[in-house]
């Protein structure tokens, strides 16, 4: 098992890509902390993992809240004794504010996606130092690298911030043996974008733009996250892993 003996904290772990990460990590032997604001869904993922013989716990975690992060890391250490892996996965797309370029919307999207990632990283580093190293995986987007008519420009900014922040953390903390990499999913079919995918013509437009011709599945992102979390990637830091159906290659 690739994450045997490791403890992982996954933000936004109650559904979508984060849920797939949590389930796959548990299958690979990790003890998993599911952090999310979605309590009902988070409890269900926790129960499902534990029923299958895994070791998971749900914690309420609003990634924009500093106190929540402190509590989440403390609870992780109390329950499992250490922290080896952090997946900064929680995020919002902001498509409901498409066309609106305001300070409020900026603060909402950048505040959740980029600041949430910073707060998680800040909270996790001391615990990882104590563990003799660790792996941080930040979920950016293909839109952290290129612009797209499908994404809010402020979402793109927030994901671009995560991309560059990842490299800085990688460089600053390589000496602590803390690796930090970013993942750049293309269009992935998740509960969060289900309504949008039901809009007539939307899927066809996406599929026309993805070389592989389809949405990705959360599990397909989770395997990339697993690779970066495990020691199989022990000499990798500061990289970008595009899991985008070929979006960025064109």
């Amino acid at each position: 098992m690739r994450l045997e003996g490791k403890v992982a904290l996954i933000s936004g772990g109650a559904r979508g890509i984060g849920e797939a990460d949590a389930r796959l990590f548990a299958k690979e032997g990790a003890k998993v902390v599911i952090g999310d604001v979605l309590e009902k869904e988070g409890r269900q993922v926790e129960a499902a993992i534990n029923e299958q013989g895994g070791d998971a716990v749900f914690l309420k975690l609003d990634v924009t809240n500093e106190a929540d992060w402190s509590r989440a890391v403390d609870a992780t250490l109390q329950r499992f004794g250490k922290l080896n892996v952090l997946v900064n996965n929680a995020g919002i797309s902001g498509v409901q504010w498409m066309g609106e370029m305001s300070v409020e919307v900026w603060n909402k999207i950048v505040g959740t996606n980029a600041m949430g990632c910073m707060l998680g990283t800040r909270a996790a580093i001391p615990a990882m130092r104590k563990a003799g190293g660790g792996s941080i995986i930040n979920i950016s987007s293909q839109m952290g690298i290129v612009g797209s008519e499908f994404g809010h420009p402020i979402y793109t900014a927030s994901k671009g911030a995560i991309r560059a922040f990842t490299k800085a953390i990688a460089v600053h903390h390589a000496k602590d043996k803390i690796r930090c990499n970013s993942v750049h999913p293309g269009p992935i079919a998740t509960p969060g974008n289900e309504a949008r995918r039901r809009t007539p013509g939307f899927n066809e437009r996406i599929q026309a733009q993805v070389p592989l011709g389809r949405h990705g599945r959360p599990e397909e992102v989770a395997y990339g996250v697993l690779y970066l979390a495990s020691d199989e990637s022990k000499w990798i830091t500061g990289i970008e892993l595009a899991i985008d159906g070929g979006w960025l290659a064109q």
Partner: protein
Amino acid sequence: MRFKDKVALITGGARGMGAVEARMFAKEGAKVAIADILDKEGGALEKELSKNGHDAVYLHLDVAKSQDWRKAMEAIEKRFGRLNILVNNAGIRGELKDLVNITEEDYDRVLAINAKGTFLGMKYAIPAMRQVGGGAIVNISSLVGIIGSRGRNAAYDASKGATRVMTKTAAITYAKENIRVNSIHPGPIDTPMTEESYRDPEARARSQSRIPLGSIGQSEDVAYAVLFLASDESSYMTGAEIVVDGGMMAY
């Protein structure tokens, strides 16, 4: 096992990174064709893998020769009946000289093996992959296929840059046929090819000082990335790059 029932061809598979990949692939259940011009080392690896219960064969293959590729594909078809995975790993370093001092012959030789070899590999493997409804190609480029290297062999860097972009073109072109093509970009790795460069302790220390994670990489670090891109675990990835460099490119 991540490669149950898969057939993989690894060029330059007789030693170094290619041999580590061959062993890892076999352990994960793949049937492995080890292709190289180093017949002695390749034959020994075939024996080693067979002795350990794996299904492996060594094939003589000069990657710069079309005829060799045709023969290798025929041999794989005959032995295994299909091809699912190609790792274009074979490569040479070229003269350890700067651009002005590289000979034209060396430039041509490096490009023929590193870039044309990768091109020919894809040219001959893709039709075979079509027959089984898809496949995965992993091209070994380099960190210097993305960024420049001060005073080093420009021909090598050019060949690796060519590999990088060819990868993306092939990825986009054959995506609809479920043939995925990705590239790997290793930084300084201890291999037989780089032995000469890192033998001098001062040169080694100089290289290490530029690597945030503090050490030269090992072949297995690259092999795990190859394994990931060759397996179905990366089924939504194509035209992508994995940099395996201890953090060098991040700063």
